[in-house]
């Protein structure tokens, strides 16, 4: 893994002065929604979670704020009367916690698929319809193909699309537009951008729990 480089190295002045020379992450404007974390927005292309593209989140262990990192973006979607869809989460999404996080229960849908294939199908349908503001899918798929299908569905529907994958998938490549590893850090959550289409890699630390 390359060492994190949060600040892009400035271009030589001569290059910057030439009109028409764009830096990599400026090349294709990326549509995004703020994550609600300023340091993370600054790192991500477009300044937030990409809209209409797949974001892959790989928590190294569970219980480190791997969903809480999305909370502010999800809350804003709910404020705009959009729906949040949890597909195949590993445990029961606890209603009191959702409410406290600013996600009204009628805005939340929990799809408890019987298998990974059904879960991918449900996420794909939901993304393609664009009827939800965000889709969060917990997947065990190792293959490329289901992820490619999700990426295409995300492009069609223009929602936020998150896929949670186990740490073992880190060794595989991924078609996701944005790929992020999440690791525990003292009193915080370490967010490492491994791949960002139209952006750069890097790492930041965020505080996502109210209890430190």
């Amino acid at each position, binding site marked *: 893994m390359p060492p994190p480089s949060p600040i892009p190295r400035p271009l030589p002045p001569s290059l910057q002065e030439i009109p028409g020379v764009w830096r990599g992450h400026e090349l294709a404007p990326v549509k995004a929604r703020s994550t609600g974390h300023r340091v993370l927005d600054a790192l991500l292309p477009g300044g937030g979670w990409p809209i209409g593209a797949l974001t892959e989140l790989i928590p190294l262990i569970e*219980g*480190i704020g791997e969903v809480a990192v999305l909370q502010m973006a999800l809350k804003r979607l709910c404020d705009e009367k959009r729906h949040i869809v949890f597909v195949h989460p590993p445990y029961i*999404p606890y209603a009191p916690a*959702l409410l406290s996080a600013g996600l009204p229960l009628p805005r939340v849908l929990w799809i408890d698929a019987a298998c990974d294939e059904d879960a991918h199908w449900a996420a794909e349908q939901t993304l393609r319809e664009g009827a939800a503001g965000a889709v969060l899918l917990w997947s065990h798929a190792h293959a490329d193909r289901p992820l490619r299908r999700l990426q295409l569905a995300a492009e069609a529907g223009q929602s936020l699309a998150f896929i949670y994958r186990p740490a073992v998938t880190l060794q595989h490549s991924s078609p996701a537009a944005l790929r992020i590893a999440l690791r*525990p850090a003292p009193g915080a959550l370490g967010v490492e951008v491994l791949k960002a289409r139209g952006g750069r890699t890097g790492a930041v630390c965020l505080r996502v729990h109210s209890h430190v």
Partner: protein
Amino acid sequence: MLWVCIASPVQEKHALKALASWAGQFSSCVCLDAERWLLWLEIGSSLRYFGGLNVLLEKVAAGLNALALTATMGVAPTPEAAALLARQPQALPVLQLEHLQRAIATLPLTKLAMLPAAIAGLQASGLTSVGELLALPRDALARRWGLQVTHYLQRLLGERADPRKPYRAPQTYHRRFDFAEPAQTVEGLLFPLRRILYELQGYLRGRDAALQTLSVAFRHRDHADTALTLRTTDPQRDALRLFALLREKLERTQLPGAVMQIRLSVERFVALRDTQLHLWDEEQRQDAGWSELLDKLRARLGDQAVRRLGLRDDHRPEKAWCVQSDAAAADLPPAFPDRPLWLLSPRPIEQLPQLLGKPERIEAGWWSGEDSSRDYYIAQTAEGSRWWLYREAATARWFLQGIWA
């Protein structure tokens, strides 16, 4: 009055009735003749609503086409003349009574709805066309062939009243479809299923109604029926939408054997205002997309897999929530202390991780015999995970019940 007669290609009584129910979308007066396999629609009063005769006839033809039926139609001011024209391919519609006699004059005698013996007799006297028959004096005809013949000709020409009993569509919808050869595959079911859903759509349009629950049963030779129930979030009547949902359900259903018969039934209907179908603003459109999506998900994954969450008034964390089938109106949320996103069924833990902060005492359920005095703690494992633990007061045992994801 203006009548369309459809010479029905279906020749089973219940199929003809289903077709009559379907035709209710075009006319409030539908009549049928189950001996001659004819269906009449009085369209004089619905022409304006449909935007003229041609548009209406195109809609009827397109509808029949969707039912995979090839039928000939005749249009005339009397039911019998319409029936006569329906037996004559490419006959032009006759709109005025005064044009009728000339329009049918050249048709062969054999197309008339008269007994074969009468027709044969007339032919034997050298007559070949309808015009030649109509030119004969009526009283002579009556003496030779009976009043039946002259009355028929009078009804044909509109000289005698021809009252007909309109077909009344039933209040609940039941349609069965029998296979000539048992259907062995799901694909074999889809074609008739789509057809009977199109009939249902016509019936619903005629009633200006929609449905939210649809039952389909597949009858097998040696097994109990396979029954499917489709429930939709919003009232529906679009045949293709219903078909897509049923198909999804069907493909996830294990059929125990070949299918002999399909039975479709709808017991309850929802009145549908036109505005619900045509006038959408953006938010409604989004809501419609959302409920369509829910239906699609439920059809494949099952009703139980698509869940809404709710709260229950109970202090015990595992009973403070519930699954709801539909989104309830949002009450003002009560203020909860910090709660973890994931709830687990309590699992005992051996190694106690580092506890953070003060415990929260939760006591509830003692009146139901489930004494559950618990002290809840937030804890952090050595790896850095946040857990929600409790210590059972009675046993001093520790359990993991939540994870801060």
